[in-house]
Structure formats: structure tokens, C-alpha cells
């Protein structure tokens, strides 16, 4: 089991911890609803040190061939979300690519896939791969008021800076990015600096948020989580995850072309339950129409913003109709569910 280097400090600050993808991480502090709404209306700070951070060096053509999405020319810019697919065009991982310099990139992977991805890149290329995950922490400051704390208004979305000072601390990477649907920044920095930045933000009365709120925020936006909504049995077309670029060669391209010709049998959609139903639907739960199964739930939560259960999952193409009212049975009771497009909160 891995642990964020900040865990003792976070527990002192009131974190309730739990396991995610083999890491002990803060799951919540005051309560996920308060933390969630702080991100939507104000600002909150997450520790996301569990994410994999790997440095890639070598020929750009080789990296372009491994990634389904195009990695652009400009340095100090993020290219993503992007993905590594296998030759059947199913997901090995969805990642974020940071171009640090010519022939040098940082790739942020899902925690659960870090070792698999490193191994796969080494087997399929001559690129030099360094696992920097344990050298750094990663923080995410998210919410409409995040610029007030960080400054850097001039930096546009998906741009980043290297070796800058934030609250007087050295930060390796400061990017305008996040996975919550709000404006915000992500910081990659040494554990000592992360400790100081967190401490100073707490002093500034910034709400601390855990991974439960991060999960409910991304679900409201319709953002996927690897292992729940995508995996090695799902492809980007049925997931409606438009990150591939057919104008270049990459592993999985032929399979995507063939999927585009044949079409898909299921489609990833969102689910909205009725307001004030107070349940958390279960992963793998069935979605039915007149008792006939037409799909299943892959993620679900109770949305603090909409005051109702929400989720996402796959529906047979024959029934993937936005606005269609379907059903979900939970603990012996039937609930009405509306098939909805993403984001669920707009």
C-alpha cells in the first residue's frame, strides 16, 4: 500500500482517510457535500499525489505512435485528455501529457495503471521512461476563486509553467487544469513544499477536499474514471471520449476505423434520478425499460449540486436516447431515471 507523504498532516487537519487504487488518501474532511459545493462556488484544495507521474524522453514520432491523441508542437502546454489504446482500440489508460521541452514530456496516469503503462511504453518503444511519482506530491486547487489565491491570470487553460514560486515555495509544475469542471490549478511539487503550500492555504481559509468530492464533481461533468467507466473492454467511440486523432498513425487506429464503419452496440450516457430521492445507486446495477435490461451503471453518486442521485453507464444503442425515461431497481424499489447528455449540471 502506498501513502501520500502528506497523510499525517492531513489527518491532523481532520482528514478521514481511505484506500483508493492502492493508496491511502484523504477521502473527506468536513463532508463531501460541503467540499463539493466549495469547488463549485468558491475554492478547495485536493491532494492527488496518488496520480502517476512519469517522465518520457526520446523521439517524438515514437510517443505520437503510442498515444491516440495528437501531442502538439508547443512546449509548456498540456495535450489531453489523451490515451494509450491497445490494438483493439480499448483503453490501457487515459492520461494527461505535458510537453516540457523538445523530446521531453511528463505524463500523468491513473494511479491504478502507472506500472502497467510504464511497462507497456518500454515494451513498445525505445523511449526513456522515469517514474517520478514518489519524488513529488500533486495538489489541485479548484474553483472559481482559485485565481485569487494563485494569481497567474494570464495563463490560459492547459498551459503550465515550470519551476515557479507559489506561496513562496518551489513548484516544479503549475498548470491551469483540473478534473472538476471548474477553473483551477494543479501543482506538482516536492513533499516539503506541498506541506508548506497546504499549510498556507489552510491559513487562507481554503476548504480542504477529499477524493469523494473529486468523484462527485467529475461525475456531474460526465468525466470518466478508469476502472469504472472505461477499461480494457471499452473503446473511445462507445465511451464518447473523443481524444483520438485519425490524422496520424497510432496503436489502435485500424481498430477505430473498423469500429467507425460497423458502429457501436452501446453508448456511454448520463443518468439523472428524481430530485430528492436519497440513494446512491450501485455500480453494475441494471438499467431497464419495462423490465427489459438495456444497460448498466458504471459510476453513481448523490449530486450535491442537483440534490438527486446521478450516474453514468452504458446503454444499448437502440435505447440511447437523451430524455428517455427508464428504470433502475435499488434495494427492491424501482426508481425513475432520465437518460441525459453530459455535463449533467448545465
Amino acid at each position: 500500500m502506498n501513502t501520500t507523504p502528506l497523510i499525517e498532516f492531513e489527518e491532523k487537519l481532520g482528514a478521514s482517510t481511505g484506500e483508493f487504487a492502492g493508496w491511502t488518501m484523504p477521502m473527506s474532511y468536513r463532508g463531501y457535500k460541503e467540499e463539493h459545493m466549495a469547488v463549485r462556488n468558491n475554492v478547495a484544495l485536493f491532494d492527488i499525489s496518488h496520480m502517476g507521474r512519469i517522465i518520457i524522453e526520446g523521439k517524438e514520432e515514437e510517443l505520437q505512435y503510442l498515444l491516440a491523441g495528437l501531442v502538439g508542437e508547443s512546449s509548456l502546454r498540456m495535450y489531453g485528455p489523451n490515451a494509450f489504446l491497445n490494438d483493439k482500440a480499448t483503453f490501457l489508460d487515459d492520461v494527461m501529457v505535458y510537453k516540457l521541452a523538445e523530446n521531453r514530456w511528463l505524463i500523468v496516469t491513473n494511479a491504478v495503471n502507472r506500472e502497467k503503462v510504464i511497462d507497456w511504453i518500454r515494451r513498445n518503444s525505445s523511449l526513456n521512461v522515469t517514474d517520478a511519482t514518489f519524488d513529488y506530491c500533486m495538489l489541485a486547487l479548484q474553483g472559481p476563486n482559485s485565481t485569487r489565491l494563485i494569481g497567474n491570470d494570464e495563463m490560459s487553460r492547459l498551459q503550465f509553467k515550470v519551476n515557479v514560486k507559489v506561496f513562496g515555495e518551489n513548484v516544479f509544475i503549475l498548470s491551469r487544469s483540473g478534473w472538476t469542471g471548474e477553473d483551477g490549478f494543479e501543482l506538482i511539487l516536492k513533499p516539503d513544499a506541498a506541506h508548506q503550500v497546504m499549510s498556507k492555504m489552510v491559513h487562507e481559509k481554503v476548504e480542504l477536499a477529499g477524493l469523494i468530492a473529486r468523484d462527485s464533481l467529475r461525475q456531474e461533468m460526465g468525466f470518466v474514471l478508469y476502472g469504472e467507466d472505461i477499461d480494457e473492454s471499452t473503446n473511445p467511440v462507445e465511451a464518447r471520449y473523443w481524444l483520438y486523432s485519425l490524422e496520424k498513425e497510432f496503436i489502435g487506429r485500424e481498430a477505430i476505423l473498423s469500429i467507425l464503419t460497423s458502429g457501436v452496440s452501446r453508448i456511454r450516457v448520463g443518468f439523472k434520478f428524481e430530485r430528492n430521492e436519497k440513494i446512491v445507486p450501485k455500480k453494475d446495477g441494471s438499467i431497464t425499460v419495462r423490465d427489459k435490461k438495456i444497460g448498466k451503471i458504471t459510476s453513481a453518486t448523490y449530486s450535491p449540486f442537483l440534490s438527486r442521485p446521478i450516474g453514468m453507464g452504458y446503454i444499448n444503442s437502440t435505447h440511447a436516447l437523451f430524455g428517455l425515461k427508464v428504470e433502475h431497481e435499488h434495494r427492491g424499489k424501482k426508481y425513475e431515471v432520465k437518460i441525459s447528455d453530459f455535463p449533467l449540471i448545465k
Partner: protein
Amino acid sequence: MSDQVKVGNYVLLKDLYYTDSDEYVRIEGDVAVVGITDYAQKKLRDIVGVDLPETNRKVSKGDPVATIESVKAAADILSPLSGEMIEVNDELRASPEIINQDPYNKGWLFKLKILNSNEISELWKWEKYAEKIKGD
């Protein structure tokens, strides 16, 4: 205010009875007030909903009578005693998070009129419940 004990991160009250399935029981004359322990609410984390029992019906010890839904799990609440369901905490329907905030007072779930007071001696005292959650 009754005496509190802390076992790890979890608060126990000395004047309550407890069950192996993490309910607490406060005896008030011939009425039992039932809720879930601080340990249980912390394990469940953020509670989003409660399904409360109907009143004016008899239940037996061990019957599943309520459900608590959290972001982490759904938990069946078992009746710790046999009795007649006389009152439920209606406030929890709109604000189930009260259980997280104050499990032993405002977060109570239901009240039973006790039918068989011999069953009380089968409930756990706080020392035994502390043994169960120690080190968790």
C-alpha cells in the same frame, strides 16, 4: 451530559448499550431510543439518505427495520430489541447528515416500546463494544 470515552477516533457514551451490528440503545423507562454509533457513522462516511420504519407495528430483535445510504455503502439497521415501533426521527428524511453530525443525540433513528426487558441484559455494555472497535 453522559460520560464520554474515546476509543481511537471514535466516541462512546458510557450510559448506552451497544450491539455487534453497531447500533446503540438508550433506555428511557420502558422505551428504547436506537441509533447508530459514532464508529458506524464514521465507517459509512457521508450519509445521503435514510429509509425509516413504519410506526405502530411490532418488530422482533434482529429484524432489519431501517436502511442508511451513504456515499460508501448501504447499511441495514437491525432492531436491537423486540418491541413496538412508536416513533421515528422524521427530521432525518430531509437532513440525513444529522447522523454524521450528532449520532447519539439529534441523530437517533427510532423509538421502541420495549416488550421483553430480559433482552436488555443481552445487549453489550460500552466496555465490550470498545473491545470490538479497538484498533480499527
